[in-house]
Structure formats: C-alpha cells, structure tokens
C-alpha cells in the first residue's frame, strides 16, 4: 500500500457512530456536531489510519496517497 497523504471525512455520510475514534483516538475526534474530524498534527501509523477507515460503518473516511489517488475505500470496478 502507498503511504497515506490525505484523510477526508465525508461529513454528509458520517452518522457519528464514533467507531473511528475508538479504533484510532490519536487520529480522529468528534466535533460539536458529533461528526468525526481529523486531529491536526497527528502522528499515527498508516496501519492505524487504515484500520479506522475500514471500521467506519458508512465508509465516510477516504484515504488518498501522495499522488491524490484513492487508497480506501477501493474504487468499485
């Protein structure tokens, strides 16, 4: 897997389940509207970030590599 360069939370898809926060509390937190947001300056491993994205029930967390290519969720063929 290529290195994760960018994390995006699709706010309309986030239902505030908070699974990502439980899986990777150094990367994600819930904001005042109960939507997951990325903690600035986090220093988590790519493995933890991927695990959090994969645990999201609505696949609201998008991960991109340095070339801007989507790593997760995998693009549907």
């Amino acid at each position, binding site marked *: 897997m290529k290195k994760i360069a960018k994390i995006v939370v699709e706010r309309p898809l986030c239902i505030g389940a908070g699974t990502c926060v439980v*899986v990777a509390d150094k990367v994600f937190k819930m904001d005042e509207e109960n939507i997951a947001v990325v903690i600035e300056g986090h220093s988590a491993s790519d493995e933890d970030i991927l695990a959090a994205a994969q*645990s999201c029930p609505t696949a609201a967390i998008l991960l991109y590599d340095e070339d801007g290519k989507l790593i997760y969720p995998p693009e549907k063929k």
Partner: protein
Amino acid sequence: MTEVVDYLIIGGGPAGTTAAETIRNEDPNGRIVILEDENHPMYSRIKIPFYLREIRTREELFLRTFDSYKEKNIEFLAGKSVSSIDTAASTVQTADGPEFGYKKLLISTGGKPRKLNKYQNEHSMQTVEDADKILEDVRKAKRGVIIGSGFIALEFLETFLHFALETHLCIAKEGYWETMLTKEMSDVVCGIFEKKGVKIYFGGTPDFINAKDVILGTGIGVDTSKDFFTGAGLKYEAGLVTNSNLQTNIENVYAAGDVVKYHSQKLDREVRYGNWTNAIMSGKYAGANMAGKNEVFDVLSAYSITEEKVGLSVVFLGFSGKDDQTQVKSKKVLDNQGMQFFIRNGKLDGCILINLPAERQKYQTIIEERQDFTYNA
C-alpha cells in the same frame, strides 16, 4: 473426513470479519475459515438507508470483497449456515453437509429481526435483499406505516419522509424506545416526529394498514440466532455469556458482536450492546485472544445516529437500560432536546443525548473516568 481448522468463525459480519483480520495479523499461518449464511461478503447494514435514499449505490454497501478475504488468506464460505455445534468433539455441522473441526471457535452470528408475519406488505430492514424489496415498493407507495420503535423504526421514518410518504408510526402505549427512555424523553422524541407530520399511534395501528398504497416497515427488535448452539453447553442468559476476554464458559469457544453478554470491568456489571462499534471492537479483541493474547475487552459502548429528515440525533453512551439497580433520570432541555442518565452507586453508567451532540465528550469522560455523579434536575 472432518476438516480441522485452527480458527473457525461462524458469522462473517463486522465482528466475525474483524476477528478474522485480527487473527491474521497475529498469526500469519493459521488456517481461518468463516462460515457466513448470507451470500455476500461483509457489508454495512448501517449504510442501507443511504442506498434507499439513493445517496449510495447497492455496490457501495459492501465493505469487503471476496477477493479481500483471499488476499489475507481467509477462507470465506458464503451461503453456509450452521445447524449445530458439538463442543465436546469441537466440531460444527453445516446445514448442507460438511462438518468442520476447530481448535478455536468464534460465534459472531448477531441477530435476526423479529417479524410479525401478519401483513403481506411487511418489510424488515436488515439485509441487502430487504433493501432491494423496500426500494421496489416504496416508490409505488403513497403511505408508509411503521410498527416498532428503535433504530430500524427510525431508519424507516427517515426513508418514508425522504420519499415524501404520508407517514404513520405505531409504538407501544408506554412510548418510543420504551425499554430505555423515560416518558419525558419519549415525549420529546415523539414531538420531533409529529413536527415532521408523522402521525403516532400509541398501542394501535391504522385501519388502512393493508391498503394497496401502503408500505409497512417493522422494527420490533432482533432475536439472537441461538438454535444452532442450543444443547452445546454454552451459557446463555439473554446473550451468550463470556468473561471479560470474550471467552465463553467453554475454553476454546469465544463470542463477539451483538450476541455477547460480557462483564464490563469498568462498569462492574454484565452488559450487552447491539451496535456497530461494539461489533467491530469485540471482534478485534476476541480475535486477538483467540490468537493467544490475553486482552480484557472493556471499550465503553458509544454509538449515535443522525436522521436529517426526521431532525433527530441520538447519542448512546455506556449502559442504557431499566433495571432494579439503576436510577433513571431525564431532563428535557428544549422541546426537541433532552438527556437521560443511568446512575448506579453514585456513578454514571450511561446516558442518552437527544439532539445534544456537543455534550457527548463531557459525559463520555464522566462515565469512563468513573467520576462521582449527582443528578441535578
């Protein structure tokens, strides 16, 4: 001849799949087999409402592909339901014949929605196929009737309002989410529904329920799929009982997901949760322990749901039930906002926040840190 596998997992949903992936991280070579009775790889039931509202495609419901299991050397056998377990012989019998032996077994079969089986137009909302049927019928309907209260009833409400149906909700006389909410909080929730034009029936149903232009959604709870392990010697008390390591009373048998009733050390009580986060996290811990770790599962259950059309966001933290040991207090903040507390021995064991998402962190900390808690009306 019976095949013996290192790790046998019954149920390939979020708990079973997470357990398998965790085992693979811990044990690169052990043989892992998942028996899944549906014909799909892991998908998100929670995403079904997005599919129904046409925000996401059917394909996007799936969070894993058959190939993604193969890549991790996990054998995912779809369409394989289990008929019985013999814990003395460490074997599992599948309904279509083959028997599997196991060294470690995980039961992560979740629950099946209860059905009324009384009305022709009844719909559940659990599987991809349920969603397909809803989508087919909701477009033809003019009126939507919902029986039940809880997460699924909320999803039906959101869906029917999205399709601009005249919407009718049938709940218990005692109110919405009557097993958890006080009457005061139920009134807050019902007030939110009524503001959206939903007609509520307390303890009854509309007389047109069988009409041709009606789609009926039921959300009357789930039953644990337990027939296949009845008689296997596993302790079951409204949930498959495990210790804090998610190990059942039989040494090499573990459980994860909605089916588990475990001892929370943090809250010092037996708890059972039916939500996504619990499924993922219990799967992770059960998998690690099956692969030889010794980790206590005590992740505070935190879950929430936001329904835009309904105008409702609900956060559940920790324990939320009514029992003899627990003092239940609620507070209406505004017409559409309220909070409810579950207090025991001067500590907060859980709370429910209605349209107060910003309070989540505060109460989560109070519960997790076991701070003293006094209710102030």
